[in-house]
């Protein structure tokens, strides 16, 4: 009886240790998702879909229609749409809702953001098993619509959704950045537009465009305002410049390399051109499209997904009609250091699924996610802006090919600038890249943009941008974005040696187990000897 009590005591102690260890792993932990054998259609499901639109009613309408069509196929699933107009707000709301386990079911997102969501256990559903499931997977036998197979998703777009060896999202739309050029102005300045812009060309033409008359008006446009080169997303600007220079940004595992000599040189060049009136940013001055369309900008860099705002005949416009200038718009890749090997960012929304206690609810979410990749949704949504569908199934469809062939037929669906932007990405799919994704990569991206914003503001405020200034800017930026606290990590990477405390813990536990087992073995041997002795003497 004493031995039973002893075993129970040891078991209880072990259970307590394991319980504590498990508890430490996170109070919000949910069970890992596994694909149910059967989708239970006798039940009703209500799923929420947090989506981003580019403040574009057509996109909202397509989301609504997609939900309506999906619900017609699955009457037991109700999808509630919540709309956002920027990724940052979605990210902040998801972070807030993870702690209360009130995340949406399906969510438009960026892989950078998923890396942060993954710091919680089983928060985001890995999609590998779902994608491969014969019945409910991509193009599965039980799926009630014409879904793409995994092979029909553009491989590099799908790969962008792979974190730590698992797929945590499906791509939804893809875009890149384009330089929208007032070709009329470039030629008026005596330059010929090359097929691929170089940074040197853009800076030179921009400085020429910044020339002013004695009365303060600009020679080129006769107006009081001219920002020759205006960049919307300065984080992309820095990231692409560094990539083109083959300079450091970060490693795949999250070692920060942003603050390097190449960055310093780039920032000094940006500072010099800001001082000459050649350059500004969206955060400092306003939307590039507004300046371009008013004849107050020569080179406007923005997403291809902003192409419907660009040009004299743009279908979307924020400035008054009397302010619109008439000019020829050229759509070119972002400026390059080596025009023979252009490199540009791949961006655009992806879709992830948040884990729930009920695997059936997750399966319902998956079915809806998969529906967003059908040709109906992909082609319709891609036509709202300069997006490219993420499936070859959609890209190669006769309907989409017909769309591409009709550039310029009108200033709406077939708006020429938009279709040129789409073609730009289609022609340069192999020239696109993404940045490494890790917990903290979203902050690093912000920091990269902040360096350009900081230098540009400082120059405009009459400050000197020298090594001392940049040193301070680097340390301030590192502190602001907590870059010092980013721990390198990532799937298959070498994580380095274990910390001393962890080694001590493991050694302690091993020693305890050895002693426990040794003690039990000793007891067992003594018992056998005793029984043998009794038997012998019995």
């Amino acid at each position, binding site marked *: 009886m004493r031995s039973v009590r002893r075993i129970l005591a040891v078991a209880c102690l072990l259970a*307590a*240790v394991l319980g*504590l*260890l498990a*508890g*430490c792993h*996170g109070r919000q932990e949910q069970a890992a998702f596994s694909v149910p054998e059967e989708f239970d259609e006798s039940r009703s499901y209500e799923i929420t879909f947090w989506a981003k639109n580019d*403040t*574009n*009613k057509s*996109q*909202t309408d397509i989301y609504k229609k997609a939900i309506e069509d999906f619900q017609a196929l699955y009457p037991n699933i109700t999808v509630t*749409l*919540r*709309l956002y*107009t920027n990724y940052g707000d979605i*990210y*902040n709301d998801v*972070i807030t809702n*993870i702690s209360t386990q009130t995340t949406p079911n399906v969510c438009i997102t960026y892989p950078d953001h998923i890396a*942060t969501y993954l*710091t*919680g256990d089983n928060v985001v559903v890995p999609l590998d098993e779902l994608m491969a499931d014969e019945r409910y997977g991509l193009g599965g036998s039980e799926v009630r619509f014409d879904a793409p197979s995994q092979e029909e998703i553009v491989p590099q777009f799908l790969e962008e959704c792979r974190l730590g060896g698992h797929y945590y999202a499906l791509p939804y739309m893809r875009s890149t950045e384009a330089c929208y050029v007032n070709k009329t102005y470039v030629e008026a300045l005596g330059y010929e537009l090359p097929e691929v812009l170089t940074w040197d060309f853009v800076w030179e033409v921009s400085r020429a465009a910044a020339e002013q008359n004695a009365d303060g008006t600009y020679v080129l446009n006769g107006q009081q305002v001219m920002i020759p080169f205006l960049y919307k997303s300065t984080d992309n600007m820095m990231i692409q410049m560094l990539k083109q220079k083959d300079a450091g940004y970060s490693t795949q595992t999250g070692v920060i390399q942003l603050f390097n000599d190449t960055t310093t040189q780039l920032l000094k060049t940006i500072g010099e051109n800001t001082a000459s009136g050649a350059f500004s940013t969206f955060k400092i001055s306003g*939307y590039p499209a*507004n300046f371009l369309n008013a004849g107050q900008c020569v080179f406007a860099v923005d997403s291809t997904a902003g192409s419907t705002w660009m040009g004299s005949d743009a279908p979307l416009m*924020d*400035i*008054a009609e009397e302010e619109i200038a008439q000019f020829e718009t050229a759509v070119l890749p972002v400026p390059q250091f080596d025009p023979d090997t252009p490199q540009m960012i791949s961006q655009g929304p992806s879709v992830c699924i948040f884990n729930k206690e009920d695997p059936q609810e997750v399966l319902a979410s998956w079915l809806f996610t998969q529906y967003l990749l059908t040709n109906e949704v992909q082609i319709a949504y891609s036509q709202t802006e300069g997006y490219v569908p993420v499936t070859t199934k959609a890209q190669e469809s006769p309907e989409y090919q017909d769309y591409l062939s009709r550039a310029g037929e009108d200033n709406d669906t077939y708006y020429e600038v938009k279709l040129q932007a789409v073609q730009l990405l289609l022609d340069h799919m192999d020239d696109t890249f993404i940045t490494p994704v890790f*917990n*903290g990569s*979203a*902050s690093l991206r*912000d*920091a990269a943009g*902040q360096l350009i*914003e*900081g230098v540009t*503001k*400082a120059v*405009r*405020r*009459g*400050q000197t941008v020298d090594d001392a200034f*940049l040193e*301070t800017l680097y340390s*301030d*930026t590192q502190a*602001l*974005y*907590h870059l010092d*606290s980013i*721990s390198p990590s990532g799937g298959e990477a070498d994580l380095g040696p274990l910390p001393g*405390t962890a080694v*001590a*813990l493991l050694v*302690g*536990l091993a*020693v*305890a187990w050895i*002693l426990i087992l040794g003690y039990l073995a000793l007891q067992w041997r003594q018992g056998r000897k005793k029984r043998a002795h009794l038997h012998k003497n019995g």
Partner: protein
Amino acid sequence: MKKLLSLLLALGVVCSLAGCAGSNDGSQSDASQSSSASASGSQTDGSQADGSQTDVQVMSYEEYMAAELDAQVTIEAYVQAKQSWWEDKATVYAQDEDGAYFLYNMVCSQEDYDKLVPGTCIRVTGYKTEWSGEVEIIDGTFEIVEGDTFVAEPLDVTSLLGTEELINHQNQLVDFKGLTVVAAGQDDAGNDVPFLYNWDGSGTQGDDLYFNVSVGDQTYTFTVESYLCDSSTEVYKAVEALEIGQVIDAQGFLYWYEGVNPHITSITVVE
């Protein structure tokens, strides 16, 4: 032996707890830090106003308006309305007897934000800038100045709509009288609607409201900015209840975005 075992196991428990505590803290802070950083992006520029208020020359409104863009400025004005606070940044409308200021993303703790009730006098140091036509102070710091309070009376600018003089009252609390509500757009069925969620109707309840009003033969777009007046406010609900053809009086702040774009804070249906 048993004592030794118990001791080792207890040690294991303590070590496990310590190890877990460390790792858990780390992941939580990583998440919150990322969130924090993404939301506070445009502040550090290596040249930020340091908040030091010694030896500063407080500008009059006239001096402020005469200052070059990107110049460092220091002004004193009275809070009229708070638009938003997020991650230690506040956006505020302020005004004195001579003119008004839009103070965008001032460094501000939640505690200080709570103190910014209408009428409170603050001294702000920041940089004068212009964003899509809106002249504002950014990258600012502030301190509360004890003493007088001032709540502006709205200025009726109805007769100035469409004139070049209107911009001289940018950011002020203003009144518009006798505006006729006209269609802001169409719904899915093609019917005229008196307001839209977002400028093109792409939003949902909780987003900014846009509605059009006419005075004479001119039509203007007014906005209920959802950070300044969210969907729980009277003005938000009043705009949602508007009907085409109604005549209204409206009050708000004279914000600018590529032209006049008042941020309306109250409306009254007069007929």
